[in-house]
């Protein structure tokens, strides 16, 4: 208790220094006075009396010293003293301080922001209990590494698997909702009964789905998402038990999901209903429409789970060869499904930010070196006046700490701002697929990371001048104009640092160049059609009114002919799936008149109207397109793409050939009437799959997309387009109106490529700037150190040109070494980048050459300034200056 009280007093005393000093002086003075009085009374002379009194006290200063040590905490006092001194020093050198703090802040801001993303996306992406036990379960075939499950397969897997605590499935669906503003299509999800239990999610209101509630014949029940509950029901608690009409079918609301519920694969779903399959095709083993998610039993590894489902798949393959031939199975962590596509990008960005931080640190280090070089005299003087090496070192450490504290504070504050940006910049649709980014922010882990890199920087910055102190002979510093071995040591170290900086800049520039080139190639990839001047809109007619094939055909015809009368429209067409969306929605085909062993010939299936190809601007290679008259009353026909022709009819003319379903049922037989050049159906970076285009009129669906070729800017037509359809068909849902150009530019692939190219490009630009500044610093310093030498050379008759050459040669050597090392490192790092590259290799020669030229140009530019200064030295002044 007592020591604590004393400690508090000593701590408080840190702030009352002056007053205490005065009191102590007064007290000692009065002590001496009294002693002198006594001594005089005892018969001494005044001088003797005072001398004796001081002697008896043990000296005034030593007493004060002992008193001071006791009155405060000397350790903290020294620290404060150092800090005050450091701040004074840094304030005196405003230029140095600003540059160092800004560079540091930049490096820390970049790496902390990127780390915040890594944290949100990779470290804790799933907001469920025990997320590592959750796995995605897929079937797979030759074409699809991750194919959906069919319902019977799912039931068998569920029954036979021994590794899962539970296995459930989900599949996307949508409803038309009648609202005062018209018919609104709303995304929804169909799930098996235990889906939410597998995730470990309980509704916030109402109940979960009962076991067995996903079987046909169960009542129609729906669970609302939190957002939907707020938006459509005003957040009222009494919604439970109410009825809502979804696509004209009444559903009873049984629950509301909690606010923090996320399910990235179906991010925008508002309504969650159970499977309740009734259509015959849904019970077929060949109808793959379900995504599986399972919770593994404790102690079961992903590999073990994978092996188990593979065994079951083998068994099913034997049992049902017709449908299950070649159907394997795969299991992988659910987190991979959610963040797998952005993981390589984030790692590359983290690497880039790390390199930027490294360059910033190296730059600050070399600034510190220059500074400690120019402070040699100050330090030598302090050393000569009795400052111990320890005390000098603690001074450097304090300076570094002050510098780093300012830099990291600024860096973390700006990072706090930058991490808020993506939530504002990323389009809502894309955000819905990446809900984990909502948790983006500076949490404890991110702050710990910031602390760790600040600590690293602080150690680096305190070691540098300390090491420099050890290298330089302290006494040398006092000698006027001395520039002994220490100057050279520093110059060598400084040159090495700058070479390393240039090399790192090369790595970042190459990365940025490759990513930029990938992006360019990606956006200019051959699509097989003209994407400009194309508008599109999706249409969904309720099954109750357009469920019959004839009704859907009539709807399509009416909408297309209505749109074609609009001014500014050249032509309009229908497709079941837009191009540049995804490879999938496939059909298994079997060729007439060829042997068949049950293999799965998987092809993209698209149902398109007769004017589709001409509207898109696709190229017909052989045969003809179908006509609008070719409907259910006519023989079935198909247009295939070149990839299908090449794969299944090599060296043959496919026109007139026939194929059908795997059983070759008579109704399914179609005749090939045309071959169209490959249209990019999948994402920009995907491969071309074989594709079959069936006439919409022979395989209609009330849910389709309309594509419109316009003569004016397609964007300007969009409002009128939706309005026309809504007006003529108030009962159908109209949504997703956009232009095909936008669709491509805003696609996730383009978006990810673009953001990584821009971010790495930004890092590279800053790295280029910093490394060039670093080079400038080294060359300028070297010129200032060699002023006398240059003066002598010029006095002896060296031409200005020769001086230029002298300086530029040194700079060129450093730059060349840096570039070469950088290029080697960049090629080594390329493997790391390959996952993000499209159409270029990591050793793309033009990119490497361009980077070398760019950096070389800026390096020569930066060293030209000090070279000019060197060449304009007046020999007389130079020789007199020292």
């Amino acid at each position: 208790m007592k020591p604590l009280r004393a400690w508090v007093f000593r701590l408080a005393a840190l702030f009352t220094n002056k007053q205490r000093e005065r009191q102590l002086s007064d007290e000692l003075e009065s002590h001496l006075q009294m002693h002198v009085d006594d001594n005089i009374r005892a018969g001494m002379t005044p001088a003797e009396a005072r001398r004796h009194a001081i002697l008896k006290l043990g000296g005034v200063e030593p007493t004060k010293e002992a008193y001071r040590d006791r009155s405060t905490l000397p350790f903290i006092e020294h620290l404060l003293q150092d800090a005050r001194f450091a701040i004074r020093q840094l304030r005196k050198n405003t230029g140095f301080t600003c540059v160092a703090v800004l560079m540091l802040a930049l490096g820390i801001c970049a790496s902390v922001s990127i780390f915040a993303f890594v944290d949100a996306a990779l470290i804790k992406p799933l907001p469920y209990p025990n997320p590592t036990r959750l796995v995605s379960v897929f079937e797979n075939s030759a074409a699809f590494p991750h194919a959906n499950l069919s319902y019977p397969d799912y039931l068998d897997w569920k029954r036979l698997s021994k590794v899962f605590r539970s296995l459930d499935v989900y599949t996307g669906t949508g409803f038309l909702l009648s609202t005062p503003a018209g018919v609104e299509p709303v995304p929804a999800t169909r799930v098996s009964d235990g889906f939410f239990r597998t995730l470990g999610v309980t509704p916030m209101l109402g109940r979960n789905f009962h076991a067995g509630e996903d079987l046909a014949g169960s009542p129609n029940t729906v669970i609302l998402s939190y957002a939907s509950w707020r938006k459509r029901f005003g957040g009222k608690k009494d919604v439970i038990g109410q009825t809502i009409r979804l696509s004209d079918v009444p559903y009873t609301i049984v629950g509301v999901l909690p606010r923090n519920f996320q399910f990235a694969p179906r991010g925008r779903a508002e309504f969650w209903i159970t499977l309740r399959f009734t259509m015959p095709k849904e019970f077929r083993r060949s109808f793959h429409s379900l995504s599986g998610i399972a919770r593994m039993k404790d102690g079961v590894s992903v590999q073990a789970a994978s092996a188990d489902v593979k065994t079951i798949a083998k068994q099913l393959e034997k049992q049902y060869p017709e449908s299950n031939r070649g159907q394997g199975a795969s299991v992988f962590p659910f987190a991979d499904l959610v963040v797998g596509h952005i993981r390589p990008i984030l790692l590359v960005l983290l690497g880039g930010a790390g390199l930027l931080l490294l360059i910033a640190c190296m730059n600050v280090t070399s600034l510190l070196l220059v500074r400690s070089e120019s402070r040699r005299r100050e330090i030598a003087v302090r050393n000569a006046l009795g400052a111990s090496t320890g005390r000098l070192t603690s001074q450097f450490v304090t300076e570094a700490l002050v510098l780093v504290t300012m830099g990291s504070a600024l860096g973390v504050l700006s990072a706090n701002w930058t991490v808020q940006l993506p939530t504002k910049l990323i389009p809502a649709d894309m955000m819905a697929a990446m809900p984990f980014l909502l948790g983006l922010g500076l949490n404890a882990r991110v702050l710990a990371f910031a602390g760790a890199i600040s600590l690293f920087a602080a150690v680096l910055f305190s070691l540098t001048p300390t090491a420099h102190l050890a290298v330089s002979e302290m006494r040398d510093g006092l000698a006027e104009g001395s520039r002994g071995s220490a100057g050279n040591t520093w110059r060598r170290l400084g040159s090495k640092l700058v070479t390393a900086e240039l090399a790192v800049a090369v790595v970042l520039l190459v990365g940025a160049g490759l990513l930029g080139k990938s992006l360019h190639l990606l956006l200019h990839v051959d699509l097989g059609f003209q994407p400009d001047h194309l508008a599109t809109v999706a249409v969904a007619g309720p099954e109750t009114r357009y469920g019959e094939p004839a009704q859907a055909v009539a709807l399509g015809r009416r909408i297309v002919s209505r749109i074609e009368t609009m001014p500014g429209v050249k032509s309009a067409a229908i497709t079941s799936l837009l191009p540049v969306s995804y490879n999938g929605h496939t059909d298994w085909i079997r060729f007439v008149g060829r042997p068949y062993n049950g293999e799965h010939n998987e092809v993209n299936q698209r149902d398109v109207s007769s004017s589709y190809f001409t509207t898109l601007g696709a190229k017909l290679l052989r045969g003809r397109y179908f006509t609008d008259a070719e409907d259910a009353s006519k023989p079935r026909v198909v247009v295939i793409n070149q990839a299908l022709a090449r794969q299944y009819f090599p060296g043959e003319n496919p026109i007139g050939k026939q194929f059908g379903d795997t059983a070759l049922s008579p109704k399914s037989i179609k005749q090939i009437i045309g071959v169209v050049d490959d249209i990019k159906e999948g994402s920009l970076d995907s491969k071309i799959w074989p594709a079959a285009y069936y006439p919409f009129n022979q395989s209609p669906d009330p849910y389709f997309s309309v594509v419109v070729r316009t003569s004016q800017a397609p964007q300007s037509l969009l409002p009128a387009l939706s309005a026309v359809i809504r007006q003529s068909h108030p009962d159908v849902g109209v949504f997703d109106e956009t232009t095909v150009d936008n669709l491509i530019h805003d696609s996730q692939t383009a978006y990810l490529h673009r953001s990584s190219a821009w971010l790495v490009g930004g890092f590279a630009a800053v790295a280029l700037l910093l490394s060039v500044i670093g080079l400038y610093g080294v060359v300028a310093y070297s010129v200032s150190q060699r002023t006398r030498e240059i003066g002598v050379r010029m006095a002896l008759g060296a031409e200005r040109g020769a001086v230029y050459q002298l300086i530029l040669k040194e700079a060129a050597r450093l730059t060349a070494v840096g570039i070469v090392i950088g290029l080697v490192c960049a090629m080594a790092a390329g493997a790391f980048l390959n996952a993000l590259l499209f159409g270029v290799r990591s050793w793309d020669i033009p990119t490497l050459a361009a980077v070398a030229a760019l950096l070389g140009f800026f390096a020569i530019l930066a060293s030209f300034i000090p070279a000019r200064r060197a060449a304009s030295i007046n020999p007389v002044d130079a020789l007199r200056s020292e």
Partner: protein
Amino acid sequence: MGEKADVWQGTLALMILKTIEAMGPLHGYGIARRIEQTSGNLLSLNYGTLYPALLKLEQEGSIASEWGVSENNRKAKFYKLTRAGRKQLAQETRNWEQTTEILARFLSPSEDPA
């Protein structure tokens, strides 16, 4: 070294407290002179060592100080015992008596070999 100083500091603190108790509020010089006198001039005391000890006692709350005027009309800082100081003095006196008694038993020739 450190241990010795501690013991010395401890005894010095005890002497200071006892002196203030006996003499009433007193300034540093007076305390030093009084300690020297009491010890029968056996103790050679550097007066300066008194001040950090006084500061420590004050920080610990055993004594309090205020400025006043000495018997010779000199301005001086007077120290007086606080309640906590009185308690501490009683406690330390007991401890010290016990210690010396035990040590005395060790050091005196045994009178009664039982």
